[in-house]
């Protein structure tokens, strides 16, 4: 088991380096605005632009740039500086990460709290009105686009522009340490938007998974043992059914931690997703590279965690 984990970690590192190399390549090959021009501002002279290019190291060959870049990361933990503002990428990311973490983890809690019970009840009462209603609701939740739902809830419930002024609107995010209460209330609408799609997906997945587990032979054995139906459903059925759901959860959180761009934009939350988007638009390459590596890292870690979790949950996997 230990060798397995070590191997996965090493492979994860290789993958991350590969991802950053690819990003480097794309940025240099694909047409994009010249960062030197952007930085130089309007009506700048070619000399200024050239000077900036040298300063930023953009005149060197691509592979040299990449090598220098990697060296800085590995030896100095230096992810470079924004072409635009000169701020260090690490500090920018550090600033923005808490918001993304709050958004992602809070949404995950919410979608689990909604999706899991609905999935289980739908499976148990399969075919009933409750089941059909829940699955119809799930279909709706999955179908609503994030940005549309986000704007809708803002227009309905935001306390600045909404019809029913209940929740704080866009741009009201504050850090947890600044004011826990405001932090919490400002995230309610964004959590709801992010969670609605996922809750729908999770309830459907769990429903299917539980229906399948309840059809297994060991359920019949459990009933034949004289166990209460509640115990049969939870200890025998749900216990098997959650395994695929938990693995999806790990991957979803891993992906979301890379930044939920749409939600962050609609609600004006200063997170990684928005940082990344703004950097792309302004060809601020070091930031893009930094956020991409971060996102890749999150996904790699999520995959490893999910694999370990699966082995913990399903003993049959441990010996392969």
């Amino acid at each position: 088991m230990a060798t397995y984990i070590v191997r996965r970690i090493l492979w994860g590192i290789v993958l991350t380096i590969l991802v950053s190399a690819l990003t480097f390549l794309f940025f240099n090959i694909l047409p994009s605005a010249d960062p030197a021009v952007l930085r130089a501002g309007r009506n700048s002279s070619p000399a200024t632009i050239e000077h900036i290019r040298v300063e930023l190291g953009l005149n060197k060959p691509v592979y040299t740039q990449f090598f220098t870049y990697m060296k800085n990361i590995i030896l100095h933990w230096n992810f470079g500086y924004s072409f635009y503002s000169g701020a260090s990428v690490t500090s920018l990311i550090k600033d923005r990460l808490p918001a993304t973490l709050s958004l992602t983890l809070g949404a995950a809690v919410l979608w689990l709290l909604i999706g899991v019970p609905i999935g289980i009840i739908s499976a148990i009462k399969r075919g009933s009105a409750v089941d059909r209603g829940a699955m119809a609701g799930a279909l709706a939740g999955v179908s609503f686009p994030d940005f549309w739902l986000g704007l809708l809830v803002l227009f309905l419930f935001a306390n600045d522009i909404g019809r029913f002024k209940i929740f704080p609107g866009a741009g009201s995010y504050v850090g947890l340490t600044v004011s826990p209460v405001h932090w919490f209330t400002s995230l309610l609408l964004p959590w709801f938007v992010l969670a609605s799609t996922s809750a729908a997906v999770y309830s459907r997945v769990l429903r299917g998974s539980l229906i399948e587990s309840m059809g297994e032979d060991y359920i019949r054995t459990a009933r034949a043992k004289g166990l209460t139906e509640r115990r049969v459903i939870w200890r025998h059925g749900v216990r098997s059914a959650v395994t695929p759901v938990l693995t999806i959860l790990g991957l979803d959180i891993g992906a979301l931690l890379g930044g939920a761009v749409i939600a962050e934009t609609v609600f004006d939350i200063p997170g990684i997703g928005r940082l990344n988007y703004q950097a792309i638009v302004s060809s601020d390459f070091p930031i893009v590279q930094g956020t991409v590596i971060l996102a890749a890292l999150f996904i790699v870690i999520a995959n490893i965690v999910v694999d370990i979790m699966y082995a913990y949950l399903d003993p049959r996997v441990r010996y392969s």
Partner: protein
Amino acid sequence: MSTPLFSVDDLRVSFRTLDGVVHAVDGISYAVEAGKTLGIVGESGSGKTVSSLTALGLTRSDNTTIKGSITFDGQDMVTLADDKLRAVRGNDMAMIFQDPLSALHPFYRVGWQLVEAMRAHQSISKSAARTRAAELLDLVGIPDPKRRIDQYPHEFSGGMRQRAMIAMALSNEPKLLIADEPTTALDVTVQAQILALLQDLQERLGTAIIIITHDLGVVAQIADDICVMYAGRIVERGSTEDIFHAPQHPYTWGLLRSIPRLDNPRDEELMPISGRPPSLINRPSGCHFHPRCPYVRDAHKRVDPKLAAVDGSAEHVVACLLESSVRSRIWDGIQSGRDADSLQRMAASSPEPAVPPELANAPESEGTDIEPSEEGVTESERHGQHGPMGPVDEVDHRLTRNERSGDVITGPEDT
């Protein structure tokens, strides 16, 4: 004669499905005495498992209609309330199933599952239950039980898993153990060991056993009495002696003659039973066996035979319209190796039986064969094990199918 421990009386169980009503069990009666073994034999789709599942209340659902009575230890299991039923299940009456790998939960250790079975019915501490679990594994012949209770089912071999299931079923000292095809998923050598184990346990603990199987060889070894089932009915019932030495029903003959025997000449042909089991939704008219019976007469397509005593025996009954003298001659002929054609001619030469006037214009039908369907396919089947599907597939799939004909080869197994 003492009251039997377990008796089924005119039980009828039908399931309402999308394809129609499945008459899984259509008026069967049998009994088991304390400490004895009853074998229920039949093909896939004969309904042999349904009566046992019904006794445990495992067929109850909105789409199921159950009529008749099942009496266990003085209580009627058909009308018993759910909570009282649960108190009996796994306690005084226990059941083991066919494929022990899928029947045990893969995520929990074997010892834990035994402890769960015990704590469901006894007030016993976890540690005492663990000790008892190790004792039970030892009782069923699993070596190194203290280490084994902390292992998972996939770490056991097939034979050991079945032993563990038997141990779990016995953990609350049941008066009746129902074994549904316990050896079908196992190697032949392991099969013999499991059967010997069951016999041994019966001697030691006095448990009555019902063994459900398609394999007459299995019942020959351990059953005191046998019921032969076909299309949801009992077609013949008697002691093991009676069934093997003086079988009366053509279906029973077919079963007996389709077993390959080492002491017969190598090139002697087996006499298989032609055709397939009928669908229990659309059964043949008259005698349900008539489409497959080599000795069928016109009357048999309209008249439904009832179980009647065989001459000279109170306990041996058969449901067949052939005259008993004709049957004896056919059986003698089969045993002495006469070929199928001459036997059929002999049977056809006896006088045509009369059809009662009220049935003179009854419609004749051969019924339909079972359609293999995906409904109710259990996990082990999804993984590619073989065997024709039974009509219980057409049932709400929460009732998982566990009837099969033919042995499944799972690969080399050690005990």
